[in-house]
């Protein structure tokens, strides 16, 4: 009797989780399948998971256009440069703030914490970026968000966990502060840094509001903005070298293929990111 009870419970647990898993997976499978299918097949087949006559036509088409590959390259470069700036700025600022006996540290931390709960908001930030002459420059996607206060506090807390005696020892050996940071603190913080690299990089790749605000010139569009243009507004591009003319490829497949290609870097990086998911830093970072 008791055993039967347990198995009902288990069926329930595994059943619900399998359902969650499928609900999560189905849209992704459908998107990939749809991007490979012909228009006719897409319209007729309800639950399309494996297309009968898969074709890479839309992918070939996308890659042959000027707009889409350009936006992918631009976004990749912005992501790399932006993440580097993020890491350098965050570590450089977090290290002095992690030193307990630094005069003025309390006030600086108070200022940082204040930016966590209050901000000037969208329009004043736009006005500042505009007055710095950053409109239509890729720097606008990098510099205004150089430090996330939230990550700064977490990195600072992580640095603080490292025993001060290590820093003292390095100083006695005649190491400069910058040497202590790069030779002692950073190597000890590798797992944490990997996590923040991941957050910053994904943030840059998925960034939507900033390019929407700061890039008016459609030739400079990042992949997310172009994606919105193609998928939601059903226009292929804002400028003259767009994708449309004489187009006979299925529009739906095209949209899905664009979704797939633009998510590919995330999917490819995912197995590497997974390693860091269950680390302590993560728990703190979800709260935000």
């Amino acid at each position, binding site marked *: 009797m*008791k055993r039967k*009870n*347990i198995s009902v*419970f288990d069926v329930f*647990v595994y059943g619900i989780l399998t359902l*969650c*898993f499928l609900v*999560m997976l189905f*849209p*992704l499978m*459908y*998107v990939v399948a749809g991007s490979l299918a012909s228009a006719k097949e*897409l*319209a007729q087949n*309800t*639950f399309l998971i494996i297309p009968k006559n898969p074709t890479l036509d839309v992918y070939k088409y996308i890659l042959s256009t000027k707009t889409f590959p350009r936006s992918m390259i631009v976004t990749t470069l912005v992501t790399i440069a932006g993440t580097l700036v993020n890491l350098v*700025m965050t570590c*450089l600022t977090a290290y*002095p*703030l992690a030193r307990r006996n*630094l005069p*003025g540290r309390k006030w*600086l931390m108070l*200022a940082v914490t204040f*930016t966590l*709960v*209050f*901000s*000037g*908001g*969208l329009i*004043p930030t736009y*006005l*500042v970026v505009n007055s710095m002459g950053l409109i239509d420059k890729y720097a606008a996607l990098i*510099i205004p968000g*150089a*430090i996330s206060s939230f990550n700064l506090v977490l990195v600072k807390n992580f640095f603080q966990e490292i025993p001060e005696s290590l820093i003292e020892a390095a100083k006695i050996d005649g190491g400069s*502060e*910058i040497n202590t940071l790069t030779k002692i603190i950073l190597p000890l913080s590798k797992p944490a840094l990997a996590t923040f690299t991941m957050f910053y990089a994904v943030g840059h*790749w*998925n960034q*939507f*509001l900033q390019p929407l605000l700061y890039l008016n010139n459609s030739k400079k569009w990042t992949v*997310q903005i172009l*994606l*919105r243009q193609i998928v*939601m507004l059903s226009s292929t591009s804002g400028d003259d070298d767009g994708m449309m003319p004489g187009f006979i490829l299925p529009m739906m497949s095209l*949209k899905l293929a664009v*979704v797939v290609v*633009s*998510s590919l870097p*995330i*999917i490819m990086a*995912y197995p590497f990111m*997974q390693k860091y998911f*269950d680390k302590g830093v*993560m*728990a703190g970072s*979800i*709260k935000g």
Partner: protein
Amino acid sequence: MSQEIAKKTKMERKALRDKTKRAVIRNRWLYIMLLPGVIYYLIFKFGPMIGLIAAFKDYQPFLGFFRSPWVGFKHFERLFTSGSFLRLLQNTLVISFLNLLFFFPVPIIIALLLNEVKVNWFKRMVQSFIYIPHFFSWVVVVGISYALFTTEGGVVNNFLTSIFHIKPIDFMGSEAWLRPMVILQNIWKESGWGTIIFLAALAGVDIEMYEAARMDGAGRLKQIWYITLPAIRATVITMLILRLGHVLEAGFDQLFLMQNATNREVSQIIDTYVYQMGMKNGQLSFATAVGLFKSIVGLVLVLSADRLAKKMGEEGIL
């Protein structure tokens, strides 16, 4: 006597000042390292706060920030007396509270279920897959929704029409379906990722407690009720309070992307309204005022949430 004390404290103060001075000199390299960060914060974090003054001016780009005329609370009066204000506030809060009601429990339930799984490979597989959607952008998630739910051959409508023989439902364009779709997208994108924090709390539970409970004849449901749930109680409360502090953030990216001409009546939230008024209609001062209203109410909410959390014996946010 009192003079002596005054003298003493004066000397003490001087000694302290000298000490601080020496500490500052000794740490000069640390301050130099801080310099780029400080400049960044002054320009891009505190600069916009000064820019909030524009909410009390009639900002004219050609006059510049400082020469634009002061208008006092004109923009706020306009905001509070306009009919759209209540609608905005309502739209924002309804989406936030629907998320609280329908989205918030999902990660908790999934975490509880995952905690009951003893087959390791199954647990790992489910976990590593349900985290994925969190890393997609809102453009991708809304794009996938369009593909699935469109009236023009979307899989959901195809299914519904072939089974129930009903007319296609305009999931992505109608007012009635905006909120359910927004909540659904949120559940799909974030509930897997949201389990991490609850699983972390559950990892701290001593396994011996379950064994002891089993010896006492407690079934699985009783074990969940008396051991597992109390273990994540603190985390649940903290997360709930955190969400309450952010009820004015209904999510710019998602709502902006879901918005279209037919559903604006329910999809316009404070953030998207600020964007539309400021960037599209060019009413920079008015939009700044709307943003300032949101920032101030948000600040009060977050601080109260923090205080509430601390009062309940939890960690708090700050």
